[in-house]
């Protein structure tokens, strides 16, 4: 501990070099934390999925619909507590670039199924009573400046829903109680869309609540068996499996983001290692003098490692805090559609700090070994 001042002194020796190194470590930790946050965003969706909800889609593919008559059959399956349904609307708000999820839902049963959709009692009532009413997530409302009572026009994007524009009135702005619900979506009455659809009475997917999460897989199988060999065979999965499949459709994110993160770490190791090597080389004579005075090789070694550690941790703190401040769902507004909400959380910050500590120690290992193995006589004889 008594050497802390000495280490701090060496850190301050070349201020410009230290600053540059601190900043490059900061950038690396910033990038690393942001990448982790994106991956965590995807994980959070499947982690927050309810174990008691199962999702039923057509076995061919979820783009095909099923008749409303499936509802009764699912509801009467033993172990099923509640059923609701929804359709993907895929409409266009002003411009095709304004992409967000629009779901035609059965309001009463849908809100019952998803208590994570946080809505005040008045808004809930107003939404249920208005056939052309809709609710939007607070993220979406912020993005497009939607307010309660606003009228919005959506052009149907899928031929099934006809070609006439749909008018909606915003009756509620909901908050997402967990990552299982996206706060960048819009929900409206399924009946409103059904009135203009050809063919009518079609459902995109059913969501079922089962009484016992341990039997979810069995109940899912029982649901599917009732429709096997019908014209509308189904595939039922737990909500968790369903969202995991959805994320995997985006491509192999783990591999892509993982290899980028590795490159980030390696680049920083090179930069920091280089700095430490330079700083040791500059002080060759000094180190030799210290050794002559009786400092042991091990002490010299830990002095150099300590210096690397402090520089890297300094960068890590800056980078992690910056990431925490900048990369969050509110300031980015990138999420929406197929990309879940993400933001750097405290755990990402800790991982980032740990990473910077690792970089500091790993980068100074070779220079520290060099310094501790210095031959005193040679070093003293050398003129810098």
């Amino acid at each position, binding site marked *: 501990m008594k050497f802390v001042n000495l280490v701090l002194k060496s850190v301050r020796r070349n201020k*410009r*070099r230290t600053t*540059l*190194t601190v*900043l*490059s*470590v900061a*950038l*690396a930790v*910033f*990038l690393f934390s942001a*990448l982790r946050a994106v991956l965590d965003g995807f994980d959070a969706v499947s982690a927050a999925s309810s174990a008691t909800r199962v999702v039923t889609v057509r*076995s*061919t*593919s*979820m*783009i*095909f619909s099923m008749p409303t008559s499936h509802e009764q059959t699912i509801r009467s399956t033993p172990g099923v507590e509640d059923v609701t349904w929804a359709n993907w609307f*895929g409409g266009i708000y002003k411009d*095709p670039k304004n*992409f967000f999820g629009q779901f035609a839902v059965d309001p009463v049963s849908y809100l019952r199924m998803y208590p994570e959709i946080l809505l005040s009692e008045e808004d809930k009532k107003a939404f249920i009573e208005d056939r052309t009413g809709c609710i939007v997530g607070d993220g979406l409302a912020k993005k497009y400046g939607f307010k309660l009572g606003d009228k919005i026009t959506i052009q149907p*994007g*899928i*031929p099934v829903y006809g070609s006439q524009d749909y008018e909606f009135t915003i009756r509620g702005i909901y908050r997402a109680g967990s990552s299982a619900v996206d706060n960048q979506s819009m929900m409206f009455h399924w009946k409103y869309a059904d009135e203009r659809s050809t063919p009518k009475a079609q459902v995109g997917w059913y969501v079922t609540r089962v009484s016992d999460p341990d039997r979810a897989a069995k109940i899912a199988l029982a649901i599917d068996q009732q429709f096997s060999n019908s*014209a509308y065979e189904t*595939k039922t999965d737990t909500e968790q499996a369903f969202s*995991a*499949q959805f994320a*995997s*459709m*985006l*491509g*192999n994110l783990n591999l*892509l983001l993982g*290899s*980028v993160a590795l*490159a*980030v770490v*390696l*680049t*920083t190791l*090179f*930069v920091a*290692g*280089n*700095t430490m*090597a*330079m700083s040791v080389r*500059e002080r060759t004579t000094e180190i030799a003098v210290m050794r002559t005075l009786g400092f042991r090789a091990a002490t010299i070694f830990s002095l150099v490692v300590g210096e690397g550690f402090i520089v890297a941790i300094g960068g890590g703190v800056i980078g992690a805090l910056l990431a925490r401040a900048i990369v969050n769902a509110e300031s980015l507004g990138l999420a929406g*559609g*197929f990309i879940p909400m993400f933001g750097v959380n405290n755990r990402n910050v800790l991982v980032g700090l740990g990473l910077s500590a690792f970089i500091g120690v790993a980068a100074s290992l070779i220079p520290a070994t060099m310094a501790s193995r210095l031959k005193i006589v040679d070093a003293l004889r050398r*003129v*810098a």
Partner: protein
Amino acid sequence: MGLIGSYNLRSMIVRKGTAAMTAGGIAMVVAVFVMTMAIAQGFRGALVASGSNDNAILLRKGATSETVSGVLRSQLPLIEAMPHVARTADGQPLASPELVVIISLPRKSDGNPANVPVRGVGPRAYQVRNTLKMVEGRQFAPGSREINVGRQAVNRFGGLTMGSELKFGAATWTVVGIFTADDASFESEVWGDVDLMQPAFQRNGYQSVTVKLADPSAFESFESAVVADPRLDLKPSRERDYYEGQSSTTGTLIRIFATFVTSILSIGAVFGAMNTMYAAVAYRTREIGTLRALGFSRLRIISAFLAESVALALVGGVIGCILALPVNGLSTGAMNMTSFSELAFKFRVTPGLLAGGMIFSAFMGALGGLLPALRAARIPVARALREI
């Protein structure tokens, strides 16, 4: 430049450890740049290769992709009768009415279901799309429940090998042929007879019609003829333009990601290069003083140190490009947001991309070397010479 150039080069070699580390940092940045851009290139390439300049695709007015388009059965003969449409030797129009639906098949790598496009095509589709080649088996016979499968789809999804039977749309289909399409997106698809797909998927009509133009340069007159016909509420586009547009959503997303990551990473590497060059200047203060005393101008000193930094970065650039090369041709998949289906494509490391990587590394070197070089030039001669 002769003396000073070799002086800087030799100094770089003397300090090989530091030089190697700096180049290593830059190499990593260039490798990440080339690899991520290779994904964007590959994705876009797969879609652009799908479109031919000789072909035109007709979609419903206002439709941005096949999924949301519709073409009535009665409209097909009207299009086929148009004089702009190329014909076979026996006078058959080269037009293919098409319908794309998505089925779910297990991905081989992780067993998860993936969205695979099934394309119902007209009997002359292989003449309209002449880049398609059968590598195994034969073309499906019109009127039978036979399908052809793209090579990428066979490799990526289970149950699509030659002779296997596939159940979808309440019927069983047999794979009778496997095709390639110059790495185009069609290689991720399953093709069959559109007239059998329609009832199987309970669809009336088609989504699009692709025609081969008799004279590719006469696209404008074809377009005005289609628009002028009140029975056709369709809009033709050049097939290449259409597919290029299809790649934009996902392509842009990948590009934004690549730019974000590499720009932040490159700042870190530039700082590293700066450190190295500042140290190089500090070590050689006396030598620089000598050079100045001998009459070398400030400008010469600046350019010499800049050149040293750029050379160092270029070495890194070459290493980075070599590191990134092995991913070329590696196939992967990503969801195409516009069609909601999985598109298999290959990483494409093009010569242009490598050149871009080299320019990028030179730029990083110049940026990192600029301030230290200026500092070197500003050292007062007398003080520099006095320094030990």
